[in-house]
């Protein structure tokens, strides 16, 4: 699923990283604890999270995750956006809560699993 279509499906705002809109995403990972994210092995993943801090971007960086979406309309700080921009990571924000956001993407065909899922 293209990032461009994810943005539409979630009615999300693009806060940085327009350059990744044509990336093809294979799987989604929804989590608020970063080590749970790091246990999820798969390439071309979108991370959905309700957690807002710089460690979300660090985790994405280590995991080679190129797209992060903050749920429930949470707005990241400028510092978070700047760090993401410097790492080439796209930041999205959707008003949908976690469960709904994951459900919308799953319904739209983003059904890939992690390796140990």
């Amino acid at each position, binding site marked *: 699923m293209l990032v461009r279509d994810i943005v539409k499906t979630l009615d999300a705002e693009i806060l940085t990283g327009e350059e990744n809109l044509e990336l093809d995403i294979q799987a989604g990972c929804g989590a*608020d*604890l*970063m*080590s*749970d994210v*790091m*246990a999820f092995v798969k390439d071309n993943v979108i991370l959905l*999270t309700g*957690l807002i*801090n*710089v*460690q*979300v971007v*660090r*985790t994405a*960086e*280590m*995991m*080679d995750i190129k797209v992060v979406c903050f749920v429930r309309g949470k707005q990241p700080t400028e*510092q978070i956006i700047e760090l993401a921009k410097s790492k080439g990571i796209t930041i999205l924000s959707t008003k949908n809560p976690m469960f709904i956001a994951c459900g919308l993407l799953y319904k739209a065909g983003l059904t890939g699993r992690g390796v140990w899922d």
Partner: protein
Amino acid sequence: MGLSGQKVTLRYTIAAEDFISAGEASSHVKKTLNKLGIRHELIKRFTIAMYEAEINTVIHASGGEAYVEITPEKLMVKISDNGPGIPDIEKAMMEGWSTAPEHIREMGFGAGMGLPNMKRYADDLAVESEVGVGTVVTITVYLS
């Protein structure tokens, strides 16, 4: 830049209680390994494991040090701290075991998955710890 038989070493100080800069050492290592042309999958495994260990020194100890050695054979990092130590390493290695307080969980850590993740991603993981003295975690990923 390439790895032509020589050894590259890197040293970092991991600041105490500094949640914002936590992960900078792992990030710098990732950048360096990319420049050296190491395979992506190996970089990913190594830096995730290092990042977990780096975060642990920030949230469970009061910061520490990281020493990285890159040779044509392997990637190795030794992360040491003078924190409280781990009383029961076997327990600490279990998925879901965590002593992290609520304020740490609110920052996105405390799933009890860090050490299991290190084990999962490293080829070798050594955890040495003494209560009241500190902890040394050594992570190795082989290149060949």
